């Protein structure tokens, strides 16, 4: 049976704890709390209540019949994380980590964000629990996701634009780490994906596997069997691992993780470390990364801010190496086709991140027969991307 990571947070050679010394006591404290509360019935009951009444779980598994017919292959089922409170899967994790922060007596929450979905989901739970909240966001992302910046501010968070480096998600993470080192005593760092030092990759995964556990049961109820394939987009990899993890031991289920190919892998302007990177160490863990021959991190590119990250969660690196998950990639233009297809045929506007998964389904479904099923993670809704889309299509709103 698949059982990762080991007690030091290793997924084979990946993962681990690679941080400056000042962070070590905080990480140890977090790990102790995480190990304790993930087994604590009272904590788990409170988490369940919040997921049900605040987030709105379980999220539906929706049979996209019209789209399936149009593609002429497998039956496509959408796992509707877009219907969660705040509009993406990110909130599953922030609700969990915020409860943990409260149990640990922390009064200040910090987070990094790319698309702003994780920032919004963090500001939301911080507002609800009355915790101070600071969100770091690359200056480039502040611009392209201005709607989410406004939402965070309304929710009472302080949004700090990060001007260093490439001014995107990785730099926001650097800045959040710097804040954490400085304010270690009262601050809880809510990382938004399955990256960072142990226990984050395991902990965020554990909060996100609700997606896959529900999907498995819903699929059994709706089709009487397991799905034949799973598809999810991979930025840091939290929505993907959330869907995939409960199916890892089900060897009949094919699993596809979709990275952002940006302008195309061959152009070098992409965000696909698993498809085109190499192992290295960044942000507290060993994993596939986009770095040059000197070990400097390369700037990434994707139309979707949430996939614009040079690393990936260490568990995905392991799942790639053992061949359990196929990592594929989708360009900006292909993602836009996925975006429009779902919008026009099903009346559902997906986030640009999720649109990468949709675009891969458009390639995969026609190669399968109509008695087979695909579950694709609709990780978020597209409201936040209206500006990007309009600009891309030359429309002023």
């Amino acid at each position, binding site marked *: 049976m698949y059982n990762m990571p080991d007690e030091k947070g290793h997924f084979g050679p990946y993962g681990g704890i690679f941080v*400056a010394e000042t962070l070590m006591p*905080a990480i140890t404290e977090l790990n102790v709390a995480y190990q304790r509360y993930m087994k604590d019935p009272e904590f788990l009951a409170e988490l369940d209540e919040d997921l049900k009444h605040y987030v709105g779980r379980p999220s539906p598994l929706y049979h996209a019949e019209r789209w399936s017919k149009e593609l002429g292959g497998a039956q496509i089922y959408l796992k509707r994380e877009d219907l969660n409170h705040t509009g993406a899967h990110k909130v599953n994790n922030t609700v969990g980590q915020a409860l943990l922060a409260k149990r640990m007596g922390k009064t200040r929450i910090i987070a990094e964000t790319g698309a702003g979905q994780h920032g919004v989901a963090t500001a939301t739970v911080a507002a609800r629990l009355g915790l101070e909240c600071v969100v770091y966001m690359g200056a480039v992302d502040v611009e392209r996701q201005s709607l989410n910046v406004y939402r965070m501010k309304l929710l009472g968070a302080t949004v700090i634009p990060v001007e*260093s480096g490439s001014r995107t998600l990785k730099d926001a993470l650097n800045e959040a780490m*710097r804040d954490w080192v400085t304010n270690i005593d009262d601050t809880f760092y809510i990382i938004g994906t399955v990256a960072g030092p142990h226990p984050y990759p395991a902990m965020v995964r554990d909060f996100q596997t609700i997606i896959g556990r529900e999907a498995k049961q819903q699929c059994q109820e709706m089709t009487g069997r397991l799905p034949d394939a799973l598809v999810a987009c991979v930025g840091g990899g939290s929505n993907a691992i959330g869907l995939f993890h409960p199916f890892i031991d089900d060897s009949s289920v094919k699993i596809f993780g979709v990275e952002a190919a940006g302008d195309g892998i061959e152009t070098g302007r992409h965000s696909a470390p698993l498809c085109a990177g190499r192992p290295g160490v960044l942000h507290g863990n060993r994993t596939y990364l986009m770095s040059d021959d000197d070990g400097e991190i390369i700037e990434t590119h994707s139309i979707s801010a949430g996939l614009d990250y040079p690393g990936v969660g260490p568990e995905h690196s392991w799942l790639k190496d053992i061949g359990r998950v196929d990592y594929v990639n989708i360009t900006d233009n292909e993602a836009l086709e996925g975006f429009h297809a779902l919008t026009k045929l099903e009346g559902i506007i997906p986030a640009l991140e999720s649109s990468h998964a949709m675009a891969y389904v458009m390639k995969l479904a026609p190669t399968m027969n109509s008695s087979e099923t695909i579950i694709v993670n609709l990780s978020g809704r597209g409201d936040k991307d209206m500006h990007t889309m309009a600009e891309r299509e030359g429309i002023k709103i």
Partner: protein
Amino acid sequence: MSRLKNRFEELAKSGRKALIPFITAGDPNPDFTVPMLHALVESGADVIELGVPFSDPMADGPVIQRASERALEHHMGLSKVLKLVAEFRKTDQLTPVVLMGYLNPIEIMGYEAFANAAQRAEVDGVLTVDLPPEEAEECVALLKARDISPIFLLAPNSPPERIRKMDAVGSGYLYYVSLKGVTGAGHLDTEDVKRKLLEIRENSNLPIGVGFGVKDAETAKTLSAIADGVVVGSAFIRKIEENLDNPENAKAEIIALTKSMRQAMDS
């Protein structure tokens, strides 16, 4: 015997403390670095910490971040930094040089290739900010086999068992980070530092360098009364930043600051 060990023993004998400047290799340009290192030694530096630029310096404040960015504009990666050390060694066989940086450049070069290259360049110590001892076994063994000291950080919140661990895996000296925060931040509290150094000394016999937040000669003097070495980084790099149109000015100001610190520490 290693240069680091030698240097700290000599200093102890003469009752002096080590002045350890940090500059980022290649900042503001690659030609600046080696002459600057020689000038630092002439002005009273005992050990050199040479920063290896990294694209994502998570433990550094804005001053050293910008130094890294300037150096990377000249593509000053790890292999070029090693070339600078080799060049420095041509005319200075005595001053220990410690590389300070992040793990990814070493990972990408490969641990063994790096250890060999560092040995050829006559590097004396390697301080990798994001490589705690738990993950360092392989790298430490390769370095120690080549008589290169792996140097580890200790923080204000490091408990005694952690100090003993660093003592066991580290060599050369221990680097005590005097405040919770990034490089160049805030003010350090010398009373707090004093208390922590006592605790460290109870658990280790390695020399202790103190850094993060040493801005002037006065702080250097206060710290040299309690530590074995004083590390100064951002204060020097600020001089470079203030004189980007005239690096020779920066050099003159760094020399003056080094001399004033040396004088204060020895008085």
